[in-house]
């Protein structure tokens, strides 16, 4: 069974500091729908930049990038694409302090036409899926690091995206807590059939994926 590509990237280039830093130096990459990909590579090699390109947080200078059927080089307003197709999980949970856990999970739904009762219902459903329904009204500052990252995962999933982009999601956690997060991501991946692209430094974590990409100096080195 050959699945269609959800991500197609050809010769993608991105520089910073007026061309001095070549963060992406000709990336060629195809990812199939529902695949679990892990990306490895030394610090500064361009892993985050690549994820940001896929998630349309920034634009490349050269090449082509097509994600979920949308040409990211040609589309002007990418906010709708981000809200519908992409769920980001960052190394830092990036939750909004002083908003409750529930309210944090609701945030991505403001750009959709969902009514506030439905927003609440869906956020609670996701919090249940990550095992934090009972903490819904807590302030995120009262949660442990692992719990915060689970809230961030619930937030990433709440709009039912087709792709989850996780940039070192366990990087700030101890290995035991990290494993809980990884298992959660992996089970959500298989249950929800989303495409999961995850940056990680841990080889044993990377092994969980269908495919490992090695990024070096803004290029994809080899694949296994």
């Amino acid at each position, binding site marked *: 069974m050959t699945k269609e590509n959800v991500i197609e990237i050809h010769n993608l280039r991105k520089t910073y500091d007026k061309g001095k830093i070549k963060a992406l130096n000709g990336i060629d990459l195809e990812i199939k729908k529902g695949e679990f990909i892990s990306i490895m590579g030394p610090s500064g090699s361009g892993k985050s930049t690549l994820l*940001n390109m896929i*998630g349309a*947080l*920034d634009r490349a200078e050269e090449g082509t990038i097509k994600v979920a059927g949308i040409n990211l080089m040609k589309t002007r*307003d990418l*906010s*709708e*694409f*981000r*809200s*519908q197709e*992409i769920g*980001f999980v*960052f190394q*830092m949970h*990036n939750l*909004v*302090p*002083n*908003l409750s856990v*529930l*309210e944090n999970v*609701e*945030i*991505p739904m*403001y*750009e959709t036409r969902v009514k*506030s009762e439905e*927003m*609440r219902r869906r956020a609670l459903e996701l919090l249940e899926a990550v095992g934090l329904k009972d903490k819904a009204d807590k302030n995120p500052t009262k949660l442990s690091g692992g719990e915060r990252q689970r809230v961030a995962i619930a*937030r*990433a999933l709440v*709009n039912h995206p087709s792709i989850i982009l996780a940039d070192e999601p366990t990087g700030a956690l101890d290995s035991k807590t990290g494993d809980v997060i990884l298992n959660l991501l992996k089970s959500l991946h298989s249950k929800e059939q989303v495409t999961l692209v995850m940056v990680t430094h841990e080889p044993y974590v990377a092994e969980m994926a269908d495919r490992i990409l090695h990024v070096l100096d803004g290029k994809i080195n080899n694949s296994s």
Partner: protein
Amino acid sequence: MSFFTLMIKNPFRNRTRATLAIIGIAIGIATIVALGMVTGGLQSSTQSTLKAGSAEITVTKIGSGNFGSSGGILDESLVTDLKNTNGVKDTAGILRVNSNVSTPSGGSGFGSMGGFLVNGIDSSKLALVGIDSVNGTIFTNGSSNEIIIGKTVAQNLNKTVGSTIDIYGTEFEVTGIFESGNFIYDTGAFTSLSTLQNLTNNTGKVSYIQVKVNDNANASQVSKTIQDEHPNDLSATTAVDLANRINQSLGMIDTASWAISLLAIVIGGVGVINTMIMSVFERTREIGVLKAVGWKDRRILGMILGESIILTLVAAVVGIILGIVAVEIIFKFFITSQSFEAVLTMDTLLKAFGVALLVGIVGGLYPAYRASRLAPTEALRYE
């Protein structure tokens, strides 16, 4: 949680900063409200001086001012003279003296500076000074020592109908209490002209003359005629002139209040810009996250602008309450004569909210624009 609730909640995430910003703007709004209330009060008291039935023209001796004329400085014969002028319907000569009855200590303001003003007038002419009804009965002309007093005097001296007041060593009986609506008269008293003339050695003399013109006559025209006929000794002022002059002073207060409003807008605006820029700065990462989860630039702009407006509208409510309380305190403890009351008009309220809204928009626009233009990757890298 609705987007609106989120906007209401956000400014108060940093309580100290929100409180400081609100206090700053609220003081400006309170000043606008307080000035507005005083102007409003003055306006309503001057409006009531132009009562139907009362005289349109006040004739005084040249150089004696409009309100300042007291003592017997005009010959009473002029009262009949003026009545024969073209266009004049009726005239009333009034002798005004100071009662020397001092009001209780602490009193200040118009009616109580070392006593109140006693006016002598023919009882049939009371309508010309705007007194068309009294609580009690009016005084009788002639030698009977009867007096009617303004409601402000009654309050300040604690007098009722039947009380007595000592004026120039003579006991006067209060037969009535009036409310003319004119705050100068309401802080004074009226008695029989001849009685007051005899009592104060002003026989045949009056202080000023009130002139009522015919229904079809033009007050300014008649006023001019009177002045032309007595070029060296009489000065005539129409109530309209007077009102215009008072309105000019009110206009100045109004201008001052606008200037203060402008100042409040500028100072408040700078304060709000500062507050909101700080807030956007601190929330750089958060804004990056909002963009990453798909918020449009427009929504981020709307959120920050909305937060700014909510901050200033809360400040408006606080400022209005503060202004009203301040005016109430000032009037309770410092202006006891109740010569006039502060009036909170719809205009003042609208102005207060208008200014607050303007400050919110002006102060929020730039920070909101900055926030909406943040590059998501930069914002997310921000420490």
